[in-house]
């Protein structure tokens, strides 16, 4: 996922020795990184320590001296994956703001807490619920739409859209379409092959298209390309 950034030989602090933290530590050590895992539960610490030995530290990483003892000052990355959102949030906040760690990654356990991570400037954050939701959306495209890239600050996004069975654009050439202003079709996937469309490309039902657009015209575009006519009739507000 983050390929180039995780090149070997960097010092990484992982907070939380649960399934996520432990496995992450193992993977990163395999890739040649220097890792310290901090775990605050004594029993869990002893279990993990049997495998990771000196690379596990017992302590509550909410306390600054624990982070300092773990060598946060020279850490290139801090990853907070405890089961407590407040812990993850504050550990990443002090890592960035107090110790000047460039890169932090926080785990969000309760998706409702995402807004607090945004507010305190802790990014990126990873929410398992969101990831699973995205996978479900991909498998079950209820709205025929998957968000691929969402650059809220830049006011631009890329979405993946399924052309509906009875969509009004089926059978028409691209240059005939009345695409909403601020949107552009950039690729078409058909029967497992992708291509960049030309003005002559005729859209077919079942085509999966990528569109780059201003988020404000998303609804309009989705209605125009994706939804079947019957669906539109049933939801006049949409």
């Amino acid at each position: 996922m983050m390929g180039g950034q995780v090149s070997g030989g960097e010092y990484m602090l992982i907070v939380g020795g649960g399934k996520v933290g432990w496995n992450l530590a193992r993977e990163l050590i395999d890739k040649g990184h220097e890792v310290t895992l901090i775990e605050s539960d004594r029993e869990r610490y002893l279990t993990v320590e049997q495998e990771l030995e000196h690379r596990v530290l017992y302590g509550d990483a909410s306390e600054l001296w624990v982070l300092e003892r773990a060598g946060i000052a020279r850490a290139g990355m801090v990853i907070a994956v405890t089961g407590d959102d407040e812990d993850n949030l504050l550990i990443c906040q002090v890592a960035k703001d107090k110790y000047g760690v460039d890169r932090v990654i926080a785990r969000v356990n309760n998706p409702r807490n995402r807004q607090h991570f945004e507010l305190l400037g802790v990014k990126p954050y990873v929410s398992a619920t969101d990831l699973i939701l995205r996978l479900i959306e991909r498998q079950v495209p209820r709205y025929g739409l998957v968000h691929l890239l969402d650059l809220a600050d830049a006011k631009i996004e890329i979405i993946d859209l399924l052309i509906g069975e009875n969509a009004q654009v089926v059978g028409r050439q691209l240059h005939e379409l009345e695409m909403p202003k601020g949107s552009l079709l950039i690729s078409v996937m058909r029967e497992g092959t992708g291509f960049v469309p030309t003005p002559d490309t005729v859209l077919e039902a079942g085509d999966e298209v990528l569109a780059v657009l201003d988020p404000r015209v998303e609804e309009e575009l989705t209605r125009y390309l994706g939804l079947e006519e019957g669906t539109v009739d049933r939801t006049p507000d949409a």
Partner: protein
Amino acid sequence: MLAEGHDVSCLDEDPDSHARLELGLDTSWEDAGGQFTVGTGLEIDALTTAGIERADVFVASTNGDNTNIVIAQIAQRRFRVETVIARILDPYRAEWYATQGLQTICPTRTAIEMLETSVREVAAGKEEDA
């Protein structure tokens, strides 16, 4: 604060805490002019119901340092409450967040100072006796 004529709204996740507010009051907390909301400080809805949008002062004094630090920052950054005070037991973190623009109260530090003063007074008394 209520007795001094301020509007006081209390947010607590435990509904039973309401009874504690009425200790020493002749009337109910509400009749005395107080407000009580059940919820946690991480729930924006609960904060709004409790009236954070019109608050002049916000005090975060749950029994958890982390909770207090997070909700104090929510009050400050999201709701722009003018005065925000957070109770932080950990002296080191209280000190650091104080440099980040948060008003912090550290009961640990206060207790240490009081204990030191008491010990010094006793020691001074003994010297005088001698």
